[in-house]
């Protein structure tokens, strides 16, 4: 099952030319600067932008082809917009149930209680929408979209209008949503942070064109990945919080690898992501003892590529098959004689558990 879009659009100040096929599972992120066409692409998927001669196919449903055009209200798509999309004349409950009521009973997969529990909005049900914070509003609009039991969920920069505080508040709900809803998600964003937290694959866009389409893991080993433009190279590891002694540290990983993290209480067993800045990773030929660094893991070098001037990005495979990257100087790389296939030890100075 894939979502296939082929569209060409020419306007005086903007040109779009895309031809892409996306797998219908997990989270696909459309990433690029503002004005690159990512929102237009999303609107073509939704049928909000009717571009002539565009073709849109969802699995075996033809949404647009020639003169055939399925309007949005028949596509069963949930959309979460940037901001202010709650219907102001309805209460929170009225908003949540607007799509639910219009979904045939046999197609309903989620019900009010489950969704409000998952999003933590049970206490807000009877509030008017203008008495909600930005984060609460976005949670309600996520819930509203879910309650219409969509077969595809489109998120159009759902966090961009929120301040840091509100973002922090809604992020855990979004990661839960992406992990638990089972609905394929396409998310427009220009924030590397959101991609690293939520996406499984990334479509990079520039000037109305798709420059590449790859898995998150793949793009994180590419030194020229657009995700690294502002904050440098990072890697993202998946795992969950593991049981361990009560020593104030959290254990994260799986049966093969384990990180020690100093963090607040995190729920055990739930799949989560860990972000490591490649800058914070050092490489040693042999295990280092008597060092303050808490996390030291064996890796097998898979790739060494030039990164910034005088520096290289070393990608190594961890014991569980995930990839860790270290940004080190060319000088050190030569001195240690690093090469592909070599078994070395990665010293990780700091990690961040993404909630």
């Amino acid at each position, binding site marked *: 099952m894939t979502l296939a879009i082929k569209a060409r659009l020419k306007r005086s100040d903007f040109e779009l030319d895309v031809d892409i096929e996306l797998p219908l599972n997990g989270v696909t992120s459309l990433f690029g600067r503002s004005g690159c066409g990512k929102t237009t692409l999303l609107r073509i998927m*939704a049928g*909000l932008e009717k571009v002539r001669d565009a073709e849109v196919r969802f699995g075996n449903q033809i949404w647009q082809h020639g003169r055939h055009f399925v*309007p*949005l*209200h028949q596509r*069963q*798509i*949930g*959309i979460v*917009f940037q901001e*202010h*999309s709650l*219907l*102001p*004349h309805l209460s929170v409950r009225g908003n949540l149930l*607007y*799509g639910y009521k*219009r*979904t045939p009973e046999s197609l309903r997969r989620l019900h009010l209680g489950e969704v409000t529990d998952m999003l933590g909005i049970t206490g807000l049900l009877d509030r008017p929408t203008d008495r909600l914070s930005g984060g609460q509003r976005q949670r309600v609009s996520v819930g*509203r*979209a879910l309650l*219409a039991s969509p077969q595809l969920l489109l998120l159009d920069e759902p966090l961009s209008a929120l301040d840091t505080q509100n973002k922090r508040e809604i992020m855990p709900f979004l990661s839960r949503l992406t992990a638990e809803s089972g609905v394929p998600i396409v998310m427009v964003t220009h924030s590397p942070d959101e991609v690293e937290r939520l996406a499984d694959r990334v479509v990079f866009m520039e000037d109305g064109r798709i420059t590449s389409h790859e898995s998150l893991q793949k793009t994180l080993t590419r030194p020229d990945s657009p995700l690294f433009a502002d904050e440098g190279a990072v890697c993202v590891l998946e795992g969950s919080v593991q049981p361990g002694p009560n020593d104030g540290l959290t254990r994260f990983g799986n049966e093969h690898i384990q990180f020690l993290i100093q963090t607040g209480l995190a729920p055990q067993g739930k799949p989560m992501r860990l972000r490591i800045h490649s800058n914070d990773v050092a490489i040693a030929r042999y295990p280092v003892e008597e060092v303050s660094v808490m996390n030291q893991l064996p890796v097998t070098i898979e790739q060494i590529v030039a990164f910034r001037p005088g520096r290289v990005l070393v990608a190594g495979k961890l014991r569980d098959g995930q990839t860790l990257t270290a940004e080190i100087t060319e000088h050190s790389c030569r001195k240690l004689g690093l090469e592909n296939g070599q078994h070395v030890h990665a010293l990780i100075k700091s990690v961040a558990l993404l909630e």
Partner: protein
Amino acid sequence: MLELSPADWQAIEVTLRLCFYTTLILLIIATPIAWWLSSGQSAARVAVQAIVALPLVLPPTVLGFYMLIVLGPRGVIGGTLESFGLHHLAFTFEGILIASVLYSMPFAVQPLAEAFGNLGRRPVEVASSLGAGLIDRFITVILPLTKGGFVVAATLTFAHTLGEFGVILMLGGSIPGETRVLSVLIYDHAEAMNYESAHRLSLMLLIFAFFTLFVVYSLTRRFKVAKI
């Protein structure tokens, strides 16, 4: 003061009937036009907007004259009706109703277009994504969120139709019970030097017009919709 003659009552009845039907028809026609006008910037929209606004600047006699030609026995529409064995529309209630609809069009379209413009497209897009079809969206989203615009459009249309004179005189003449509306009757009264009757009806219209505008402006303040 309020001793109205049967002819006065008849004129009031014709006037109210004309105002009521004009308002009803215009709300139905103006809604899609206003929606279309407010949903883009194309040259076609500017042209339609200008055409809709024409009655604001044209002398009513010009509109009335053309209507007489088109709807009359030798006109495109009147002639066609005659060839089907029907009556042409000059000097009939239906004729002045059509003219009223055109003449009051800007007073219905502009407040609605303004209200739809202020509403934006987001609420409608949201409703579509939640499975609401066209009529459903109109009733459950557009109407409740732009009701101020509808109230203003209806009131202004009604009041403006009440004040019609030139178009009706040109197209409808002054046929009692058919085309003789209040404004025409006042003219007839004044022509016949019947100043007392003219005065009664004029004062009535004056008070009604003030009251209507008062309501409209307090509504526009409350709903933040178009001002005319």
